[in-house]
């Protein structure tokens, strides 16, 4: 049963393309190149402007003062440029959010990956991810108008704008980030490892805690770090609910100001271009950029280790 093949020339003719299709391909290729350059160029532009304005800022404010002064009052007459209060505000709110998101997110991930029947998972996972799609301004007002009053009855003396309320709501917002990424890491753990544990008489819980989570540890860590940088960069919730008072405090029931909230505050005001006040937002922006950049570098390193975990 021989199959009659077409002559090579016929094949070649069938494959030769019209001039038009070649031209289209040329155009599409250039267009994609331009798009790539636009995004690279934009990033480059942002970094350049950030750098220039930050340099200008540090020509007037010494680096040492920036890192050690405990007050941030560029908009007052008695001006101080210490980043610490903004940094502490940022870390307080983000830390609180992580405190909410990590345990809940991780447990949700464990449930989705190890316990949920296929059908429940198919519904629950996208449903959780919807949480991340709610506009952050909605979360902000939810924090201010719903969570804060509850906190005020629970903890008398809670200020109207406070870190705790923003933390809790931001924590809820980033749960899907933790659960989704951690769940991916756990689902990637080979089934054969679970079977090995179960065949030794391990319960499902022992298998999860002693085999699956350790094997997925790096991926879970990476999800934590990615979530942390998201929490640090979050703007709307903190601007609405956490307040605008740069304060060096660890009390979550007080009003604080985060780096992002400060940038919003100044951007919305009528600070003249080129002034030192104007440049502060770039200095703070750079600090924020460096902070999240460091976190991402760490996270990348962790993810790289993750690949070597199991065969």
């Amino acid at each position, binding site marked *: 049963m021989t199959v009659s093949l077409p002559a090579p020339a016929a094949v070649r003719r069938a494959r030769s393309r019209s001039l038009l299709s070649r031209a289209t391909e040329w155009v599409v290729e250039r267009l994609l190149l331009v798009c790539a350059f636009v995004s690279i160029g934009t990033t480059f532009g942002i970094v350049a402007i950030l750098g220039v304005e930050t340099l200008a800022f540090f020509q007037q404010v010494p680096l040492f003062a920036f890192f050690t002064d405990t007050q941030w009052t560029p908009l007052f007459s008695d001006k101080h440029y210490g980043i610490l209060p903004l940094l502490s505000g940022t870390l307080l709110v983000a830390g609180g959010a992580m405190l909410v998101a990590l345990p809940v997110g991780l447990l949700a991930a464990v449930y989705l990956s190890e316990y949920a029947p296929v059908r429940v998972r198919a519904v629950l996972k996208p449903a959780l991810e919807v949480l991340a799609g709610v506009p952050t301004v909605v979360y902000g007002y939810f924090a201010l108008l719903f969570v804060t009053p509850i906190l005020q009855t629970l903890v008398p003396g809670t200020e109207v704008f406070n870190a705790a309320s923003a933390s809790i709501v931001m924590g809820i917002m980033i749960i899907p980030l933790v659960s989704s990424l951690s769940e991916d890491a756990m689902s990637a753990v080979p089934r054969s*490892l679970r079977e*090995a544990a179960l*065949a*030794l*008489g391990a319960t499902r819980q022992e298998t999860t805690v002693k085999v699956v989570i350790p*094997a997925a540890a790096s991926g879970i860590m990476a999800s934590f770090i990615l979530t942390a940088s998201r929490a640090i960069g979050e703007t709307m919730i903190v601007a609405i609910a956490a307040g605008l008072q740069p304060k060096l405090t660890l009390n979550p029931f007080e009003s604080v100001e985060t780096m992002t909230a400060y940038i919003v505050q100044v951007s919305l005001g009528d600070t003249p271009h080129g002034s030192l006040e104007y440049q502060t937002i770039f200095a703070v922006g750079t600090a924020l950029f460096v902070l999240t950049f460091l976190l991402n570098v760490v996270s990348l390193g962790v993810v790289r280790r993750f690949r070597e975990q199991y065969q």
Partner: protein
Amino acid sequence: MIMTTTAQKVEAEKVEKDIILDIQELSVYYGKFRAVNGVSIPVERHKVVSLIGPSGCGKSTLLRSLNRMNDLIPTARVEGKVLFQGEDLYAPGADPIDIRFRVGMVFQKPNPFPKSIYDNVAFGPRINGFKGKLDDLVEESLRQAALWDEVKDRLKDSAYALSGGQQQRLCIARTLAVRPELILMDEPCSALDPIATLAIEDLIHQLQEQYTIVIVTHNMQQAGRVSDYTAFMNMDADRAGYLVEYDATQQIFTNPQDKRTEDYISGRFG
């Protein structure tokens, strides 16, 4: 042959022969699909039983129903009985966790945990709350698995630093560490080279003194080399696996009673 004797005589023989595992009329379903149909195999203590048969005839399915690993597949369902030391593994009160602790399993592909060699072996005893000297138990298990001499100086190294054959012996050591009464092996050599395969086969011979082993293999020479008894399975037109013949390995290979066994052994199909 067992089948020709009366039921009473079968029972008498079982007592005489010290039957540790008695598979009775076992059928296994995946949803509506029947993968194993009415298989009966008595397994004698301290013997090695091999399951052979064409691919897809339900050997793994049958094996996994002997330590209730099939419970992990939501659609899987079992009919019939599996008496282990006289207790039905599928009785309403039977605890799969306890059963898996007593019936060990070695898988087709070596599946060590991404932990140290030591922690791999210590895993089972630890989760089972072992109170004695763990170091001794680990050493003893590795010795039984004929791996001790090769790893004694690097117990803290990752199990992945071992070769495939060593990993499989580590998995056997890990199983031995919980001192199972019965060990199930599902094509334990199929991912290994010939030399590593021989090492495992030697090991199976040695383990026989203390353990009972049921091994699935698609390698007939292997069945001939390692097992005392052989069960030949086949599947019918609707892919349901059934037992063709179960007898002493010697008998199966030299004087099979069933034409289908003879054809399979002589390589005429499968």
